[in-house]
């Protein structure tokens, strides 16, 4: 015996009772009236159960302690924060009106409000059978006999199917509060049966009306129906003696006219059409049992018309059409009457969909379960044409937002290996271009001055980084960038643009040609942080399209990068042990503070700058040692906000901020970066064409003569309009804000009618002057300054032992201890498939190492062996520390992956599989009894959180 709390009153429920049965047993109609069907086909038993509105009480088992409101709208907002004083609104937002910045209040709000996402369970099978009536059981048995893996879903077991989707994918709730994603390989069998047609006559909203099936269920539960009369078909399932009368309306000239009663039905009025005309008969009753015909529950099949769906049993029957309704409520969900239908018909709404839209019939919880047969018979009678049912759409059964979100994760933001270093230095981290970046360390002026006057460190690990080699590497890059690549000598680097086919700027970066000719013709190309995701696809796509013989290795996450910038940069590096540093426009391999770095010398800040690219695993060591070595120079790190100001003084553009979808190099004043005389490159044809058109606008630098005193809330002029006299002449794209004083802005400036670019304009009404070239160090002497390296004594060198990577002995490890992701020391190879085939035949790495063929031309080896790839002189072999790993035992792996891996895992052992796990791209290595999970290091923290979070969710019964 269970007790449920209904509108504050205790109601006893027996074991096996649905909530509806318990309510009826307690003498309560869930909604006060309306025919009950117990099949989930109507809205007449909706309640609010445990705070969830619109709950079909016939589909929910009565549970002890359940709190029910007989108001399916939910009434008052569920008391999520019962202790909070004040209005309901205040209860949802406890910090409204208070200091919105107070984190403790916000945390408490989100802790209470965001319930844990429901767990999801992915199930793979051959066949899924929806519905376990006779035909469903039969279909499941047949499939099992045929040797197929079958999953069955049954509403009586709490498995309510919301929809059938491409994939194919069947989504269903489960009794244990979890959401099932069933992925059938072969077939979806819809065996959902048929719904009973509801009455549409005056009085159909009374209590005491039940369908034949509902009557049988209530009687079986021991509920006394009182004096019950059957209307329509004789209910076969009712025990003898239950009925006090039977009136076969719908046949033999019988017609159902109305129900009479006050709250509860007291009589049924039927009409008999005989030879002598029509006579009405009034039959007194306590309960009317209705057998008005059946309508197939085929919505799931209709919403999946082009999927492998088979409909069996009564779900496959032809719909029975009731008589055209004369009077009464057709759509109880939206409260639409026959008079409403007549009204809109008269107004010219004759199509099924227009009738639906003009009355809202069929748009409620039951999605046409009650009204659809009547809408069809209404339209047939009025228009003489039987119209098809309106479109079946998900959700067939309505889950909550929380349940539907099961298994989804928000987009993950990558972390630099230096993330925790920034935090410990007091940085405010912010999302920018898909990465967490240090926005500011809280002292912008000092950050700025440390770059301009001393020396500063900036984390640029998020830059896209690509190693490219192969016989065609140079020819390939000539096609990709508009700069002449052939003239970049070994050891040199150059700023390059990347254009799309329309000649519009996609991205920019720097292109380095390797100095060491021993590795063949090899290049290193960077892109912006935001573009790095697209960058590899772009390169590979063109390499394939042009058929070039190149190797491409994405090192974005493999390499961290620290920009050492400022007039003292070379002194700091010398003190950190750098013996030889490259000159401007050059790069070279240098060991700094015990770490092997590729040092590239270009400049974004305008000062002497060295970009140190190095293995991600060494980033923290290098960062700390550089800070220590620079202590004497008062070295400070600088954040992104400062960097944006520094570059603005140099007039450097930021892709996405200063560029738009139509930014040609000419509009950006970057013609100097385009060589039209070299061979063809992506975008060249478009540039030749657009160069013939008169120029319309140009990105220019503007200096406001009289810097306005701006409001704190409006620190930047970005977006401000530029006027040339009265003429609108463009808008500002970049402005460093109040603190930056006279720093010029960048903005789009439209040419005037004569084709001239105005010199004197106004910005926000203030006079401004277009300036040519950078305002800071116009000749670039500071960035290009010649420095003598080695002049600084490397006094701290003793503290910088050479970092010697250790191979990870994965074979010797097992799934024991805490589930903590650790950094993997590995080697990654990009080589021709043939060469890799040969390599794995006779592996040169230690026996304990594992080798994963992650792509035909790519290999990941869990050892730091200096591999020789005999079959490919252009192979790229690099130390790889961009993956984190964890071993899971079989049970843990299964539990985790059933929840977080949507795709089907391989059955073979051992096996490698790659794909998204918990919303993060991962590699899985399955061995007998244990599974290795590899996640990209920038996402390791997020993966760790999702792994632990997922395993902490409660278990559920498997289907």
């Amino acid at each position, binding site marked *: 015996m269970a007790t449920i709390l209904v509108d504050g009153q205790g109601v006893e429920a027996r074991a096996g009772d649905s909530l509806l049965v318990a309510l009826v047993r307690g003498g309560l109609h869930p909604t006060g009236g309306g025919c009950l069907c117990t099949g989930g086909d109507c809205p007449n038993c909706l309640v609010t159960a445990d*705070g*969830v*509105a*619109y709950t079909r009480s016939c589909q929910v088992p009565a549970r002890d302690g359940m709190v029910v409101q007989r108001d399916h*709208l*939910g*009434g008052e*907002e569920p008391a999520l924060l019962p202790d909070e004083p004040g209005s309901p*609104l205040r209860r949802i937002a406890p*910090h409204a009106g208070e200091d*919105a910045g107070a984190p403790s209040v916000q*945390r408490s709000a989100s802790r209470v*409000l*965001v*319930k844990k*996402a429901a767990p999801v369970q992915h199930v793979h099978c051959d066949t899924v059978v929806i519905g376990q009536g006779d035909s469903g059981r039969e279909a499941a048995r047949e499939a099992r006999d045929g040797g197929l893996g079958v999953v069955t879903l049954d509403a009586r077991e709490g498995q309510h199917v919301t*929809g059938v*989707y*491409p994939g194919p*994918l069947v*989504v269903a709730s489960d009794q244990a509060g979890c959401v099932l994603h069933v992925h059938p390989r072969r077939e979806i069998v819809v065996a959902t049966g048929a719904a009973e047609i509801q009455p549409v006559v005056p009085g159909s909203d009374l209590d005491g009306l039940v369908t034949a099936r509902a009557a049988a269920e209530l009687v079986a539960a021991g509920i006394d129906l009182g004096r019950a009369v059957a209307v329509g078909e004789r209910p076969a399932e009712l025990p003898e003696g239950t009925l006090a009368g039977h009136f076969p309306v719908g046949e033999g000239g019988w017609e159902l006219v109305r129900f009479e009663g006050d709250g509860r039905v007291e009589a049924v009025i039927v009409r008999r059409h005989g030879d002598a005309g029509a006579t009405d008969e009034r039959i007194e009753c306590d309960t009317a049992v209705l057998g008005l015909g059946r309508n197939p529950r085929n919505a799931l099949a209709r919403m999946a018309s082009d999927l492998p769906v088979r409909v069996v049993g009564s779900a496959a029957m032809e719909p029975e059409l009731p008589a055209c309704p004369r009077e009464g409520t057709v759509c109880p969900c939206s409260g*639409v009457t026959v*008079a*409403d239908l007549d009204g*809109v018909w008269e*107004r*010219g709404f004759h199509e099924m*969909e227009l009738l639906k*839209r*003009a*009355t809202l019939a069929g748009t409620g919880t039951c*999605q046409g379960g009650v009204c659809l047969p009547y809408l069809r018979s209404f339209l047939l009678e009025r228009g003489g044409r039987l119209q098809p049912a309106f479109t079946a*759409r*998900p*959700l067939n059964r*309505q*889950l*909550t*937002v*929380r349940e*539907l*979100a099961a*298994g*989804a994760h*928000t987009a993950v933001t990558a972390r630099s290996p230096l993330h925790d270093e920034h935090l410990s230095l007091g940085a405010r981290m912010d*999302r*920018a271009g898909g990465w967490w970046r240090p*926005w500011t360390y809280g002292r912008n002026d000092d950050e700025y001055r440390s770059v301009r006057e001393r020396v500063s460190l900036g984390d640029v690990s998020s830059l896209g980084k690509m190693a490219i080699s192969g016989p065609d590497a140079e020819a390939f890059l000539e096609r990709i960038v508009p700069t002449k690549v052939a003239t970049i000598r070994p050891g040199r680097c150059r700023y390059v643009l990347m254009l799309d086919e329309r000649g519009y700027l996609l991205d920019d970066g720097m292109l380095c040609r390797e100095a060491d000719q021993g590795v063949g013709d090899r290049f290193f190309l960077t892109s912006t942080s935001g573009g790095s995701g697209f960058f590899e696809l772009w390169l590979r796509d063109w390499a394939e399209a042009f058929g070039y013989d190149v190797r491409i290795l994405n090192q974005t996450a493999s390499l961290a990068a620290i920009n050492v910038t400022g007039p003292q940069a070379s002194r700091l590096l010398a003190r950190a042990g750098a013996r030889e540093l490259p000159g401007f426009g050059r790069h070279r391999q240098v060991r700094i503070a015990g770490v092997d770095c590729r040092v590239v010398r270009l400049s974004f800040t305008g000062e002497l700058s060295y970009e140190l690219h190095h293995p991600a695993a060494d980033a923290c060591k290098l960062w700390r040692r550089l800070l220590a070595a620079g202590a004497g120079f008062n070295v400070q790190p600088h954040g*992104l*906000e400062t960097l944006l100001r520094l570059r603005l003084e140099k007039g450097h553009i930021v892709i996405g901020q200063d560029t*738009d*979808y*139509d930014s*040609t190099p000419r509009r950006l004043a970057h013609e100097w970066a385009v060589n039209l005389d070299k061979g063809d490159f992506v975008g060249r044809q478009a540039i030749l064409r657009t160069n013939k058109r008169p120029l319309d606008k140009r990105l220019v630098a503007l200096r406001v003569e009289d810097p306005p005193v701006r409001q704190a809330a409006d620190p*930047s*002029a*970005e*977006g401000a*309009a530029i006027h040339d006299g009265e003429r609108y002449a463009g*808008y500002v794209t970049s402005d460093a804000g109040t603190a930056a004083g006279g720093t010029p802005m960048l903005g789009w400036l439209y040419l005037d009618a004569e084709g001239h670019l105005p010199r004197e304009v106004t910005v926000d009404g203030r006079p401004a002057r277009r300036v040519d070239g950078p305002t800071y160090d116009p000749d670039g002497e500071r960035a290009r300054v010649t420095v003598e390296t080695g002049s600084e004594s490397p006094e701290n060198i003793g503290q910088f032992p050479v970092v010697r990577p250790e191979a990870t002995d994965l074979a010797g490890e097992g799934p024991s201890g805490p589930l903590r992701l650790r950094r993997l020391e590995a080697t990654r190879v990009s080589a021709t498939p043939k060469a890799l085939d040969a390599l794995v035949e006779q592996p040169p790495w230690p026996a304990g190492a594992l080798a994963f063929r992650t792509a035909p031309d790519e290999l990941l080896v869990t050892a730091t062996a200096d591999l020789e790839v005999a079959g490919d002189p252009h192979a790229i072999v690099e130390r790889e520390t961009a993956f984190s790993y964890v071993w899971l035992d079989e049970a843990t792996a299964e539990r985790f992956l059933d929840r977080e891996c949507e795709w089907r895992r391989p059955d073979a052992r051992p096996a490698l599989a790659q794909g998204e796990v918990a919303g993060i791209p991962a590699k899985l290595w399955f061995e007998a009894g244990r599974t290795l999970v590899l996640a990209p290091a920038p996402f390791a923290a997020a993966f760790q959180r999702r792994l632990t979070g997922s395993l902490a969710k409660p278990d559920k019964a498997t289907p």
Partner: protein
Amino acid sequence: MNEFVERQMKLTWRPLKKSYDVVIVGAGGHGLATAYYLAARHGMSNVAVFERGYIGGGNSGRNTTIIRANYGIPAAVRFYQRSVDLYRGLEEETDRWLMHQAKGLLWMAHSEAAVRAEQMRAKLNTEFGAETEFVEPRQVQELCPQLDMSGGGRWPVLGASYHPQGATARHDRVVWALAEGAMERGAHVHQNTPVEGLVLDGERVAGVRTAAGDVAAGAVVSAVGGHVSRIAAMAGLRLPIRTHRLQAFVTNHYQQQFGPIVASSELFFYASQTARGEMLLGAEIDPQPSFSYRSSHDFVQDVCRRALCLLPFMSNLRVLRQWTGVCDMSPDYSPIMGQTGVDGFYLTTGWGTWGFKAIPAGGEQMAELIATGEVPELIAPFGLDRFARDRTMADRGSAGTH
């Protein structure tokens, strides 16, 4: 009876004639608005609108009913502001209840970069007449008390651009009011009458081909959504259009009032409350081109997850129904309106995810173009020839979601 049952509009269906001055293909919002303004503003009523299904059955009946003008380039802001203004007067003009309601639109920023982008949007919009201001978190919370300002602890609201004229209107009623207004002035609308081809007179388009025979026309306007590439191909045009799915869903009735329209370009979703009290959510287009009207689970799944970060009160609401429209996306995320280079053939397309809010202005301007033969200044930048002339209307402000 519910309060939303239609009891004002009267649609009058008339038999097909052999010839019209103007034939419009597609009886969605844009087609019907063009017919309406031709009749109401220019006295041209010998006009027919052909529809393969029922009126408003395409994207006009599948959108999320949002009206706003806070776009990213001056020409677009001006154009959409015209539409916002026309929408405001449309109930009075048609004497019909369109359930138009100015709610204000909040566009959330969760990072400094987004704060800058929203501040920029506010400035640019205000300059061109679409009032928008950047508001601090405290004001955001006042405008929408339901927001979890911590973004579930991960997506804090650092501010928002606020567009007070952001509004919604019942999409079907807009369509019906325009249809009724055109019909009562004499225009014809023919449902269930697909245009199967164009009648060509030399280089000129001179009519349309239907199952009921050829129909002559002084001008043919394609106001087709989702399948414009096919109609254009009949006129020998190849359009820079890719068609993508755009999905949306509603929940059951939410008991409390949810005031504004809330959008987040970093969490990629937007939400508003319908007049019936349902929460209506949408997000970005599906990335791969498709003509399919099939909805997907991952859309609902992901959007529910993202929405819960900002609107945790939705946790216990049930998702009632999801659906899909197909969007004609132009390469620069701006519409294509006007002449086509083919005599007698006009286009209004590229309505992407922003078609509904443009209905009155799009119809008004197209009607003026057809009636006067002069390209109105407001839509001159949006001609098809802009792609060949390197004068694309690249609009990051519309490349968002709705």
